[in-house]
């Protein structure tokens, strides 16, 4: 068993998937999936999001790598530390020992 590394419990990281359905169009965000690494993420994305042969080109990006603004917020570029795709707690690594986060 892997020591101190409850990855089975924690689960594989989340990836965002972008598909360009055909030549001439831009990539479009189609959803997300879990995969242990980029190679598997690409293959899983092909199976999940292009089963009907819809995709020509696939991009996968770790969700944690995406930086975002939010146009509707008070100041859309206020705090870079806040600029993640999803605002909520579970997507960020909380430093060990940090309380009340």
């Amino acid at each position: 068993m892997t020591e101190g590394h409850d990855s089975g419990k924690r689960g594989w990281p989340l990836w965002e998937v972008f598909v360009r359905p055909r030549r001439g169009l831009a990539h479009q965000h189609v959803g997300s999936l879990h995969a242990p690494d980029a190679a598997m993420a690409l293959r899983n994305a092909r199976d999940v999001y292009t089963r009907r042969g819809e995709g020509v080109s696939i991009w996968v990006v770790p969700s944690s790598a995406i930086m975002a603004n939010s146009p509707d917020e008070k100041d859309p570029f206020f705090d870079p530390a806040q600029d993640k795709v999803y605002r909520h707690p579970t997507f960020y690594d909380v430093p060990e020992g940090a309380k009340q986060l």
Partner: protein
Amino acid sequence: MSGVRTLPPLAAYALALGDDALILAQRLGEWVAHAPQIEEDLALANIALDLLGQARTLLSYAGEIEQAGRDEDDLAYLRDDRDFRNVQLVEIPNGDFAVTIARQLVFSAYQYELYTALLGSGDATLAGLAGKAVKEVAYHRDHAVQWVLRLGDGTDLSHARMQAGLDQVWPYTEELFDPASQLPGIAADPATLRPAWEQCVTSVLSEATLDKPEPRWRSRGGRDGLHTEHLGHLLSEMQHLHRTHPGATW
């Protein structure tokens, strides 16, 4: 119902390849809703569908050549195990994920070489099927390779299980390369498929820190209708409903 021996050689050949694909599709179908991750349910179902498609084309073609009025369903559902011509590799139980992946590695790598060779077949149907199938099995092989690497070079537990999976399926690999019926220019000579297969599989095992098994026995007889005890159970399950309603359309 005519037996194997009375089939024209081309029909027998198509049937053998078709049975390989059909029986393996049946085994993979058992994984649905049980795979280690939902994404894997999808991947295995995808592979099963590809194989089933290959089986249907091959079985239909065999029936056409035979000209005894048998279609893909007659061949799939009304033959007894002694008339099936698949290699024994594809009929063994799924075991755990490692056994299944080990089988996928050796079999998809074989199918890749097979369909590559059949691209040049003098038979238009076989060459046409090969054109489509070679892309499918390239993906199947890649899927297996990715998993062999991860299981072989993952945790101690996964390494042990992957090695055990390989040890279990290896004795069935020789059969893949046994001489087949003589159809020069049409069938692929199995012995010629071996070197590329060996190279691919060996390099994957090495990268995955796995040992190539050295089994003390090898399977025999699948292509002649002599199977393991497992095929009977598999066919009972597969054929029962169809046989219970003779002549019915579904």
